[in-house]
Every structure is written in C-alpha cells, then in structure tokens.
C-alpha cells in the first residue's frame, strides 16, 4: 500500500486523493451489493452478496483506524454468520427453489419508508458536527488496552455476554433437538 502511494506521489498524485478515491470506490461497491442483497430473487445468492457487503463495511472500519474491529468484522460476520446463513439455506429443503419476489406495491412502500428514515437520520447526523468518541479520533487503540478495559470497566457486561450465550445454547438445544416418535 505505502509503496503504491509513493509511486503515485512521484507522479504528482496526492495521497489524500488516493485515499478518498479508494473510500468512494469501496463505499459505492458496498452499496451496490447491498442493493443486490435486497433485490436478489434467490436467497442463496443474497447470502453471498451479503458477504461482500460485510467485507466492504470491514474496509470502512479500516478507513476509520479501527483495525481490530475490521478484523473481527471479517472473522465473525463474513466468517461465521454468512457461513451459517449458507448452511441454513442448504439444510432447509426447498427454500432456494421458490423465488422471493415482493410485489411492486410492497417494494415501493418499503422503499419510501426506508428513504424517509434515511433522510431523517441523515439530517440529524449532519446537524450535529461535534460527534464524540471515547478516545480522540485518529488515536489507535492497542489490543492490550482493549483487553484491560474488558477486565475493568467492562467486566460486568463481558460476563453478562457469557451468560447470554449460555442461555442461548441451552435454548437452541431445547428447540433444535429432534423428538423421538
């Protein structure tokens, strides 16, 4: 990456421009695939498109200097959750044979509603210019700092999450276990 930037710099193309161009390219790609997810007629394809979208979001995290989050995003969302989707689709008989087409009326209602919500939130986000972060923007957080806060300030939520997974595990077993006839 840095070699590429040097090469571009030597040709008089500024670094800022490269980063911006890369960002817009990735953002556009993510949005395009997000549309594919919603409009796709096959649920299996939608799941694969979703993997691309989630990878794109991981790239956006990289632009925000949140490297750890980006890695986790790829590992958990792309690596585990999308794979889970695909497994579910494959294991559920006939789910892929039918096509999921919303009627035009439903789709337009959904589109209007989501566009309205988008514009309201967009306006709100634009109105406030002083968005804050817990650490100053641009400062990178080391893994050891993250680990320390999980063992101090965030110790209780961290433990509660383990309780949630325990309850979810037991619940999944109860619901998923096949009954003997």
């Amino acid at each position: 990456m840095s070699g590429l930037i040097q090469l571009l710099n030597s040709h008089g193309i500024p670094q800022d421009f490269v980063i911006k161009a890369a960002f817009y390219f990735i953002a556009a790609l993510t949005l395009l695939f997000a549309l594919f997810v919603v409009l796709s007629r096959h649920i299996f394809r939608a799941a694969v498109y979703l993997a691309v979208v989630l990878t794109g979001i991981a790239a956006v995290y990289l632009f925000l200097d949140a490297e750890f989050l980006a890695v986790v995003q790829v590992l958990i969302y792309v690596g585990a959750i999308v794979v889970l989707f695909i497994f579910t689709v494959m294991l559920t008989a006939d789910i892929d044979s039918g096509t999921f087409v919303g009627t035009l009326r439903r789709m337009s209602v959904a589109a209007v509603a989501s566009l309205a919500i988008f514009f309201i939130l967009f306006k709100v986000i634009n109105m406030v210019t002083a968005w804050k972060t817990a650490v100053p923007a641009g400062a990178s957080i080391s893994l050891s700092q993250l680990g320390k806060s999980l063992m101090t300030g965030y110790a209780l939520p961290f433990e509660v999450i383990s309780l949630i997974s325990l309850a979810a595990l037991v619940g999944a077993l109860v619901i998923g276990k096949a009954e003997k006839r």
Partner: protein
Amino acid sequence: MSLIESIRFITPEIILLAGAIIILMFSLFVSNKNVLGVFALSAIVAASLYLPQSQKVEPVLFFNMLTNDSFSLFFKEIILFITGIIILISIGYEELKEKYIGEFFFLLLNGAIAMLLAVSSNNLLMIYLSIEMLSLISYILVAFLKNNTLSSEAALKYFLFGALSTGIMLYGISLVYGLFGTTDLAMISKAVSAGQINNLVSLILLVLILAGLCFKCSLVPFHMWAPDVYQGAPTAVTAFLSVGPKAVGFAVLLRIFSNNFFHLYINWVTLVMLISIFTMTIGNVIAISQTNIKRMLAYSSIAQAGYMLIGFVVGTAGGIEGVLYYIFAYTLMNLGAFGCVILVSNYLKSDAIEDYAGLYKKDPVTSFMLSIFLLSLTGVPPLAGFWGKFLVFNAAIQSKFILLAVVGVINSIVAAYYYMRIIKFMYLEEPKAKEIGPKSVPLQIALAIVTAGVLIAGLYVTPFLNWVKYSQSFF
C-alpha cells in the same frame, strides 16, 4: 468501590445463576417437575433474602455499570415475586411436559437474572445487554411447546418484531454514544442538563430508544406481537411475559426518561401522551370482540400499559408513585387472572370464553377468584387495581393533564364491558356438560397468595403507598 467489593451487591443474581446451573445438571437424573420446581423456588427465596439494602450514599458498582437505589430495589422485589409465582404456576401447568422441565426452570431463573440486572443498570450498554438477554430467553420460552404450531408461530413473530425494535433502539443508543462519548447514564444526564443537545436531535434519539422499550411494554405501535404471542405461548409463559418484561420496560423507561432525560421532558411529553392515549383505546376496543380468553387478556394488558403510561407522562413524584403502585397491582391481578386460566384449561382443555359458561356451579372457588382479578383489572374499589387507577388519574388531574384523565376514565368504562362479560358467563349462563378434574396444589397456593395480595393491597393500602413513596427516588 472496587470490582471485588461490588460483587457483594449482585449476590441475588449469583444465587440464581448457581441455582439455575444446579437445576440444569440435576435434570439429567431427576425429571420430577415438583422436585426441580421446589428447588427453583428455594433459589428465588434465597435470592430475595440476600437482596442488598439501599444505601445512603450512591455506591459506584462495577465502574458505575449498576446502581443500587430504592427504585431498583422495588423492582427487584417485584421481579423475584413474579418469578416465584410463575414457578408455582408452571409446576401446576399440565401442558408443560416433564421432559425439558430442567431447561425450563434454568431459562426462567436466567430470565430473572436478566430482569434484576436491567432494573439496576446505570449504563445504556448494560441496559441493552440485559434487555436483550431477557428477550432471547422470552423467545425460547414462547417456543417451548415445540410440537405446537401456534407456539412456534408465536415465537417466530415475537422474534422478528423483537429483532426489529432492538435494532432501532440500538441505533438510538449509538447516536447517544456519538453525541456524548459515553454510555454512562450519569454522565449523559449531566451533559443533558447542561443543555448541550439540539432539540430535534434529542427528539430523534428519544424516539429511537422509546421504540425498543415500547416493544417490551407492548405499547402502540409496537403492540402487534402481543395477542398472537400471548395466545400461542404456553400459558405459564404468557403470564410471565405479561408482567415480567413489562415491569422491566417501565423501570428502564422511568430511569432513562424521568430521571436522566428529564431536562428534555418538553420534547418527549407530547409523544408519550399520544402513545398512552392510543395504547389505552386500541387495546380496549379490540379486546371487546375477542372470543379466546388469552387473547382478550393480551389486549387488556396492552390497555393496562396505557393507563400506567399516564403516570409516566405526568412525570411528577405523584405520577411516578402511581406508576409503581400500578405495576405492583397489575402484577398481582394479571398473574392471578392467567393462573385461573391455567387452572380452568387444565380440566376444560379450552381457552374459549364460551366454555366458561356456568363455571360457578362446578368450580365456585376458581370462579370467585377469577371474578376478583377481573374486577380489580376493571378498577372496582376497594381492590388493588382501583388504587392504581386512582393514583395515576389523580396525578394527571393535579398536573392539568385533563385530556389524559378523561380518556383514561372513558377507557376504564369500556373495559368494564369485556371484563364483566366473563363474570356474566361464569355466573349467569347454563353450564356445559364437562367434569372438572383434580386441581394442582402448587397452582392453588399461587392463586391464594395472589388473591390475598389483591385484597390486602386494596383494603389496607397505606403501607403500600408508603412503600412506593419510598421507592420512587433515584440517586
């Protein structure tokens, strides 16, 4: 206070967790419902003995993740009471097979832990996590009769609605974090009272957070799941859902809005007033035409949440006292009503209102108790439900919310029709030829406790009023 010192304050949660895990392991060898149920009950009793008393000085627990005020203590007591009664009810509920009963009590105790944490959380992250844990457990409990298609359908609907509203609430929390750089409610509260927030932005934030909590309290427009879920879920779980998550939702609502965001009162009061009016009216109007008693009680519980919301809209100390007393009374009478429904459905094998015809001749005790609960839900003096309504309507009139009080009273009159209809069926109609079977003892104990509660809290109201007066203070 250090992390280790804080642990003392979550002793009840730890006791419940230990009890839950022991039950889970025991259920490998013991599948007797009574044994496991009694063990779960003793865990609840032990936990309530170890409830931390509220302190004079605010303790900083787990880096201010939790608080320990008299407000949270009030809700903790109610939650442990609810869970105890639900355990008694589930022991006597015949549709619940002995097969997965260990897992059932495990999940129920974990639900109690989630509720205890939610009402004492002082941080949006903790509130989100504990509410999410409670929701997750609720979805599983609704689907517990897994060979029953109604139960599975209800769980799926509940899950989809829940996921949507949680997503909306999480978005609101993320905006709060972006504005203030923290999820700690105490720090947010300071920044809000310093007036560092734009009005329109705050309105959007409040709407988003409100959406998630409206779902938990089944308030309009996030009430659509309630009838299907209440009807499809095992009735013991329905009883739990109609009081537990609702109490938690109101606790969190009061803590966030009436305490920390009170400086934004002007921004949210009109919106919440509209929600209250619509919740009361829609709940009552649709309840009239129901033929299934579980569905009718679902709409009735939507309407009841609307009355509670009146006290929340008023926002004064008197209003909050009214909400607390109402939640207490509502817990008693709704648990009782669903308990009676279970008792009757155990031998009638039906939840249709028509089948309650002439119940008085065959089962006078249950008909009498059910009548008391229904009269209390109507708000007939001197039962507990009357005082709940009286306190919130009174608070509304004193703070000049005349419209709210009028709508509330009109709705109570409308509601009287469908509550009385069941009493009419039980006492005045001719009975159908169906024999009553043996009645479960634990279920009858639970009903006796709750009936006594409704009567005592109605006739001898002063100590309970003092209790809610003491409990309405946050730190």
